[in-house]
């Protein structure tokens, strides 16, 4: 390869909003129902049914638009996008083309290369499609409309990204903003956040963009990174061979690490958009906009600064804690109960993060109550349990949201500080390990550690380690 190429990437990010009901009907958006149990005439396209807009969808879209520095179209409309596919019951999708609710925003991303602004072309509201399941048995497909009509916002970026790193940073940034707003949980795996990658390559220094392709079916950050690399290579190879890149939609297969074109003769890609006559325009008054602005919660950047100032946390701690809205919420709720921010931070950053990593989970999956973590911290502080035991108890809290007080009582894990009991235990250990006592006398300091360890073990870890240390030292001196 003699020429140097630059990759140009724009993203279309679909986010499922956290409303209770669908965008145009009163059906639940809850995950996991049996097929077609969250459906009605509206979201299955029954003849004669009509859509009515869920106000909360507009509220969320505005919140995201404001948080991403967008201009707001205070007069916006819905359009129909016409195409035939069975997951789309009306054979048109209600979306916004001509007057989307938000336009011309930006977010700032940080990568190893520094900070950079990524432009947002527009954000529009639309409805999600149903789900198609392939039935291997009968070689047919089955349509489930439970997701049909779930509200989405589509965030369309400018072609401002140049690498997979920037793309991931941009997605992380969007995810944090939207999670902080409570507008969506943004889970890639569950599909509540989905990204289509528009990618083209051009020779470094070229003023015009190359022909772009659109890549779909990207279910994780890793898949996105691999797809970007794969598509970049594919396009460069085509150009090197003197061929042309065709503007098309491609589907990424992350197992095969390759993509294929989704075009067919029957897909004219001519969506015949026109204003939906069944819906009226949305007019957003200055008062409404101000009310949304006033309700905007603290976003990550502000929280990051506040954690350092208010809780005297190191920047590193604050970054990890605010890296997930859910984690930050647990942190703040726990501190509100028991104070000791640095202690709370340590439990979350060290123990919680370790367990999440072991179980390959995200901070969003944390499901214990702050009350129980606060209790645990209180118990350690009051020397009710020692640190080693506390770690075991925390695992119970993490896994089952166990009440640490009950758990410790049930399992008899309370710390033993009783002088007599401890002294008896140490005496037994010393009597059983004459060699270690000898070693200690011969100057081997390690032998004392061994004896302390044996005592702790005999006490099933519940002994007050400071006291055990003290007693071992005393008895060894006497011996």
């Amino acid at each position: 390869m003699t020429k140097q190429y630059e990759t140009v990437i724009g993203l279309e990010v679909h986010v499922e909003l956290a409303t209770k009901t669908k965008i145009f009907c009163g059906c639940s958006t809850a995950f996991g129902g049996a097929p077609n149990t969250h459906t009605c005439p509206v979201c299955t396209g029954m003849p004669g049914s009509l859509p009515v807009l869920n106000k909360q969808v507009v509220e969320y879209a505005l919140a995201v638009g404001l948080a991403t520095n967008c201009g707001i179209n205070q007069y916006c409309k819905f359009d129909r996008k016409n195409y035939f596919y069975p997951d789309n019951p009306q054979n048109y999708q209600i979306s916004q083309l001509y007057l989307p609710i938000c336009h011309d925003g930006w977010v700032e991303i940080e990568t190893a290369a520094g900070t950079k602004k990524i432009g947002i072309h527009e954000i529009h509201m639309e409805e999600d499609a149903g789900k198609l399941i392939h039935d291997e048995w009968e070689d047919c497909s089955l349509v489930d409309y439970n997701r049909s009509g779930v509200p989405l916002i589509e965030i369309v970026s400018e072609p401002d990204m140049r690498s997979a790193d920037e793309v991931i940073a941009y997605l992380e940034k969007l995810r944090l903003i939207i999670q902080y707003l409570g507008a969506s949980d943004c889970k890639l795996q569950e599909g509540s956040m989905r990204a289509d990658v528009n990618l083209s390559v051009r020779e470094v220094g070229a003023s015009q963009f190359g022909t772009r392709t659109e890549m779909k079916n990207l279910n994780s950050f890793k898949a996105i990174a691999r797809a970007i690399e794969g598509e970049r290579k594919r396009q460069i190879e085509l150009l090197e061979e003197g061929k042309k890149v065709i503007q098309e939609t491609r589907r990424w297969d992350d197992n095969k690490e390759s993509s294929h074109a989704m075009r067919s003769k029957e897909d004219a890609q001519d969506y015949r958009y026109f204003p939906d006559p069944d819906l009226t325009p949305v007019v957003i008054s200055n008062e409404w906009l101000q009310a949304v602005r006033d309700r905007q919660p603290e976003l990550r950047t502000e929280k990051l600064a506040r954690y350092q100032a208010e809780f005297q946390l190191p920047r590193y701690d604050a970054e990890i804690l605010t890296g997930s809205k859910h984690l930050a919420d647990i942190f703040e709720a726990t501190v509100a109960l028991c104070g000791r921010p640095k202690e709370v931070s340590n439990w979350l950053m060290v123990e919680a993060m370790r367990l999440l990593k072991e179980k390959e989970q995200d901070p969003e999956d944390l499901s214990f109550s702050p009350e129980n973590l606060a209790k645990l911290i209180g118990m350690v502080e009051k020397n009710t349990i020692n640190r080693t035991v506390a770690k075991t108890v925390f695992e119970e809290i993490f896994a089952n949201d166990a009440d640490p007080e009950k758990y410790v009582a049930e399992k008899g894990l309370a710390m033993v500080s009783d002088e007599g009991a401890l002294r008896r235990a140490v005496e037994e250990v010393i009597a059983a390990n004459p060699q270690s006592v000898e070693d200690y006398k011969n100057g081997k300091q390690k032998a004392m550690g061994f004896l302390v360890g044996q005592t702790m073990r005999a006490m099933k870890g519940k002994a007050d380690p400071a006291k055990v240390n003290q007693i071992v030292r005393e008895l060894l001196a006497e011996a």
Partner: protein
Amino acid sequence: MSDILEMTAVQLGGKIKSREVGVAEAARAALGQIRAAEPVVHAYVTVDEAGALKRAEEVQKRIDAGELTGPLAGVPVAIKDNMCTEGMLTTCSSKILYNFVPTYTAEAVRNLEKAGAVILGKTNMDEFAMGSTTETSAFGVTKNPWNPDHVPGGSSGGSCAAVAANECFYALGSDTGGSIRQPSSFCGVTGIKPTYGTVSRYGLIAYGSSLDQIGPIAKDVTDCAAILEVIASYDRKDSTSIPRDDCNFTSALQDDVKGMRIGIPRDYLGEGLDGEVKAAILAAARILEEKGAVVEEFDLSLVEYAIPAYYVIASAEASSNLSRFDGVKYGLRAKEYEGLHNMYKRSRSEGFGPEVKRRIMLGSFVLSSGYYDAYYLKALRTKALIKKAFDKAFEKYDVILGPASPSTAPKLGESLSDPLKMYLGDIYTISVNLAGLPGMTVPCGKDSRGLPIGLQLIGDCFKEKNIIRAGYAFERSRTYESPEITRNAQTGENNMYTKENLTYVAGDSKQAAGYKTDSIPGDSTDRITDDAVGSRTVGNAESRTGSTADIMSEGNAGSAAESTGKEAR
């Protein structure tokens, strides 16, 4: 019984209230007339005899219990077959919905039910309301009760013919470009297309969503005002529904037009207007003038542009509205196909008739890449200009008066040969839909062939009361005339038209029945009539006569449709 059938809806409602007529008695009278007249008229796609009689008993009980006290309680009604009725076939007179049984009822129909209406069945129409003659129905042609060689108009031809032939006491129709007013005119009955947004569209199977409105069809203005009062409602399920607090339409039933300013657009009286129609319209205007109205001619302008603008807008919306009929969720799925897209194409090509296809094709084209601005936006701009022209006119006039159609009902088969010519027949009605205005047709005479002529009265938005008042005042000057068939049928004889017309009906029904015989079980030996007019009878409580090829067995329509659906596989 004969005197019952001649009553208007409100008159019958009064007699039911005073216990002079029973609800079941009224329903039986209508059902009897349906049996007598249907062989000729074929106004219905579905007749629900058992359901109507059962419902009549329930309504009677509720009237007796004092729960139903409205003017229409117990009065039998016919519903155009593009309004969803739970448990009762709703076909839009299209093969693609030949077995569709809705699981919910249209809001307008629900309003009627709440007021104690007894639904007799569903009336024939142009397929998906696309047409002006009711000849594009997949279930056979409806005949004009005044002369079965002629069309009843359309698309609400079934509803209007049923009212004219006394096969119901009133009916609901829908009007997208004149579909209530033009057939009302052709059939000599009264119909109102209300201001857009007055009657909920929820459950009305959409043709052109921005133009469609449901409205009443009845024997006189009083009925129409009373019915409209019942069906008008603000419906949160329809985003285009408009909250109104001036829906006491019957308060406008006053024989008083003194000082009312009435304008007649010169553009409505020019070239293309039949001489006899023109004379009848001008005579009607004179009567209103004599009653104290101030009548003058004026230039409305833009009249000829309404038709092209309408066909762009309505076809565009229809192409999208009708895309949901694809063989996946309901209705017809082709038996043979290869893969998904072929299934779509086959099902839709088999399911839709030529006029529907024509409009879907046109609509898809005008919205397609490169043509949207030139056609669709241009049409929406034209619509804005037309609205403005009306706004200007209504600064000067309370009511605009004119014909509903350039001629009286054409002969069967005349119109479909030239679609464009048929479209031009909508010239006086179409702009009313584009501007969202209320419009009404009142009978105002007959031509030399004995075919009815309708007077159209157009009001400003939300000013139904003006046209109701003018229509009522005019109506006072004449008596309601019903066609011969209403008298012949009452005697129980086969009426004069039956024989000569049978051949036509039979010939026509072959076409309509072609797919039905292979998809719907049951033999055709025990039919309601000798010909297969294509009407279905749902159940039969009195005597089991209903079982044509497509007549359903006893029981509810839902299970019958299921069995037909299974058979079709």
